[in-house]
């Protein structure tokens, strides 16, 4: 035993230990359940993000969900099997609400994924501490003492640490998982401690163990072959296992409110956490199991190394649960909570499951008024005034409770344990804390909403201003250069006109080209018209030819000559049609003034035009045929969608919406800039209307 002085923290209680029941037998491997339910939220901070899909086969140790952000830890498949669901399931949480879980049906083969050891020593020598921390995060290493704080964050950013404290106090009644771990796996644990020490560059290492675990102390003494690690035995007093309390006990450093122990040169790790760090770094084993104490009203109380996600009902069956259990406590009797159900899977936080029998857990006495005896204050290890906190929490004066350092309460339950009025003080503190957190969250949300609303107003204001500026600029530009522009236009008259004609022709050609591929009804109509005219011209020509033939009686040369003349005429007619069309196009596209000008153009069009017209006719004919075939097919095609009842309804709605939108658009277009200024007032009116509507709706509902 060491000669190191042991300091004292305020208060503390001596609840009945009940550790003997489960500490006598060695750790046994837990059952391999048929199904594992793995909550994605396994640490403080963000829940992990799933990487697997339903139906996927996973191997033992495979990464199935990645850490999301820095305050998060990864999750691995505890055994080989198939992912059967990723959905909300009951989790070990006092709320009894469902949370996202990955459900794996095990195949019973427990087949490991191929593992490669991470050479952390090389990374350490290279000064790459970040790589080690990221590796631990991806191995899902979190604090297994119950708070599940991601361990990689505690190993971050320190040049040197004065004292590394390894927490083996395990002060809570009933729980013996750390005790058994220290007894049975002392060598591995010590190796882990040395790794953590190296990573943190700690000057001294102290292992704090309560004096009710002499076997663990002896085992560690035997395993520590050297003077670099000191085992310090502290007196059994609940809650000596609290981080701040243990730090006070071993170093006499009192961690003030709002300060982290790291800032004072002290860091604290739970023994089970250190063990998992060792398994991860030296054996490439992710955190897929943990030692859990199963005790209380069971036939075989003891410690089980169970896979994470093992349904708690399987664990209780494994321990031989007896009849007469009233409820199951997850965690210790002081700080744990009653489980909402046993379907939940074991989480990394689950150090103990207690089946409570009425004999061991008698009814809490009826809550009596607080008599301000002060027992709670003398028991409080955080040196708070529990009766004040209780008073303000109870009367919902959360601000005042906060002023009295409500958030320094570690919810150890010592105050409730000593309370002569049987007041469940911690319930009030938890209530007040969650109310304060919720209020803070909604305040944050409100601040964000305010910011966004103000920005939107600013943006609308800016857009309005910019629009007004643009309008003013355009008006100014239109008013000023009117006269000079006229003169210039007159000077370049001929050139511009020629250019315009060319442009008009190009446009006409383009439109025709567009008509061939896509189409508008306008061009269709135009084509049809043209076609009709051309056909008429051809008919006329044919008639004339027939007339000539009848006159001249089948004389071949004459007929040929006539044919030539005919062709000439037809061409002329077609040209005329083309001219007319060009003129029409030009007139439509631009000002009527150009219509006259196009008359000059036809010389340039001629053959090209004719060819185009022919092509257009062909295309039109094809299109028509296509349309007809489509129309024939349409009833069949339309029959299928019509089957869904939604479509006509939706179409109706869309039509109505479009109409409404067009009206709105027209209204907006008709609006002048001054009228827009009145928009705010209008919005107000709309809001009023909405209120009236809402009120009416409410009334009708009532």
């Amino acid at each position: 035993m060491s000669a190191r002085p042991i300091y004292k923290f305020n208060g503390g209680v001596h609840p009945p230990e009940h550790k003997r029941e489960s500490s006598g037998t060695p750790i046994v491997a837990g059952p391999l359940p048929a199904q594992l339910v793995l909550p994605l939220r396994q640490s403080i901070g963000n829940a992990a993000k799933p990487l697997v899909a339903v139906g996927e086969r996973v191997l033992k140790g495979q990464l199935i969900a990645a850490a999301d952000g820095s305050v998060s830890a990864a999750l691995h498949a505890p055994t080989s099997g198939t992912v059967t669901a990723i959905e909300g399931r009951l989790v070990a949480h006092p709320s009894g609400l469902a949370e996202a879980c990955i459900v794996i049906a095990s195949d019973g083969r427990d087949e490991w994924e191929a593992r490669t050891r991470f050479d952390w020593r090389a990374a350490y020598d290279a000064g790459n501490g970040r790589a080690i921390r990221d590796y631990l995060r991806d191995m899902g290493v979190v604090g297994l003492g119950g708070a599940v704080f991601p361990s990689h964050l505690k190993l971050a950013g320190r040049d040197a640490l004065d004292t590394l404290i390894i927490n083996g106090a395990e002060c809570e009644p009933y729980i013996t998982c750390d005790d058994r771990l220290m007894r049975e796996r002392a060598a591995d644990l010590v190796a882990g401690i040395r790794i953590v020490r190296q990573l943190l560059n700690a000057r001294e290492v102290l292992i704090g163990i309560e004096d009710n675990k002499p076997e663990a102390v002896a085992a560690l003494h035997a395993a520590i072959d050297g003077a670099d690690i000191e085992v310090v035995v502290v007196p059994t007093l609940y809650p000596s296992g609290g981080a701040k309390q243990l730090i006070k006990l071993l170093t006499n450093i009192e961690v003030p409110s709002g300060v982290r122990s790291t800032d004072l040169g002290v860091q604290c790790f739970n023994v089970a956490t250190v063990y998992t760090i060792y398994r991860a770094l030296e054996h490439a084993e992710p955190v897929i199991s943990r030692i859990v104490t199963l005790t209380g009203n069971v036939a075989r109380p003891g410690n089980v190394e169970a896979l994470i996600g093992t349904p708690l009902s399987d664990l209780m069956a494994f321990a031989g649960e007896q009849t007469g259990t009233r409820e199951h406590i997850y965690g210790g009797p002081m700080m744990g909570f009653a489980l909402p159900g046993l379907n939940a899977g074991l989480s990394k936080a689950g150090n103990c499951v207690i089946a409570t029998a009425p004999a061991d857990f008698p009814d809490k006495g009826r809550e009596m008024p607080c008599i301000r005896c002060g027992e709670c204050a003398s028991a409080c290890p955080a040196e708070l005034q529990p009766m004040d906190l209780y008073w303000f929490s109870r009367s919902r004066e959360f601000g005042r409770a906060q002023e009295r350092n409500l958030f320094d309460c570690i919810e150890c339950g010592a105050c409730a344990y000593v309370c002569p009025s049987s007041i469940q003080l911690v319930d009030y503190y938890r209530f007040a804390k969650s109310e304060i957190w919720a209020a803070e969250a909604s305040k944050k949300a409100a601040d964000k909403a305010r910011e966004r609303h103000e920005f939107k107003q600013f943006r609308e204001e800016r857009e309005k201003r910019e629009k007004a500026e643009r309008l003013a600029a355009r008006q100014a530009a239109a008013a000023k250069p009117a006269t000079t522009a006229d003169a210039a236009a007159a000077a370049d008259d001929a050139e511009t006109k020629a250019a315009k004609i060319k442009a008009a022709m190009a446009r006409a050609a383009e439109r025709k080209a567009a008509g061939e591929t896509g189409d508008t009804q306008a061009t269709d109509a135009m084509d049809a018209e043209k076609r009709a005219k051309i056909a008429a011209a051809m008919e006329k020509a044919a008639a004339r030819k027939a007339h000539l033939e009848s006159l001249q009686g089948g004389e071949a040369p004459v007929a040929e000559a006539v044919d030539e003349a005919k062709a000439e005429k037809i061409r002329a007619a077609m040209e005329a049609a083309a001219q007319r069309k060009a003129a029409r196009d030009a007139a439509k596209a631009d000002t009527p003034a150009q219509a006259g000008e196009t008359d000059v153009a036809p010389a340039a069009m001629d053959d090209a035009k004719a060819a185009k017209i022919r092509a257009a006719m062909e295309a039109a004919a094809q299109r028509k045929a296509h349309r007809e075939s489509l129309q024939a097919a349409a009833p069949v095609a339309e029959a299928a969608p019509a089957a869904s009842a939604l479509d006509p309804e939706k179409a109706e709605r869309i039509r109505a919406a479009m109409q409404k939108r067009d009206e709105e658009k027209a209204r907006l277009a008709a609006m002048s800039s001054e009228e827009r200024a009145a928009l705010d007032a209008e919005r107000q009116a709309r809001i009023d209307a909405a209120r009236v509507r809402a009120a009416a709706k409410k009334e009708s509902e009532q």
Partner: protein
Amino acid sequence: MSFWLALGLMIALALLLGAILGVAAIRFKVDEDPLVDKIDAILPQTQCGQCGFPGCKPYATAIANEEAEINQCPPGGDDGVRKLAELLGKEYKPLNAENGAEKPRALAVIDENICIGCTLCIQACPVDAIVGAAKQLHTVIASECTGCELCIAPCPVDCIEMRDVGEEAATWKWRYPVIQLRKVAA
């Protein structure tokens, strides 16, 4: 003589203090009414307009100017009214039913099968919590939605509905401890 001395002294003192006050009035001038900000901080910032004002800030201003009652904000609920009453030293009064009733927090959800991409809801949203473009599907950014319901009325196809935000384990609150009543022997 002593009378004039006293008078002179008093006048000098008055001028000095007046000057100090005058300088202080300019130097420490408060541009905005701090009361409006304090009231605005209590209001839930849903910007829903149920109070009859176009936003929380105008309502806060109206309260500060005694032009509006403190019980016109349904999203703020009973708690909000109490906080306002405490801040302003007024008497608590229950929520005015004309402005609506307190409802559990809800989020707007757009039915993607019906949305036609008209952008009307985008224009109506006071906190820019709806994304989309003309003829493109719109959707609500859940984390930004305040549940003001202003997007519901403008929707031409009624494809927006309010969905209650249920409780999750992460946001779950411990309940107020229930004190068991003593059983009275029958």
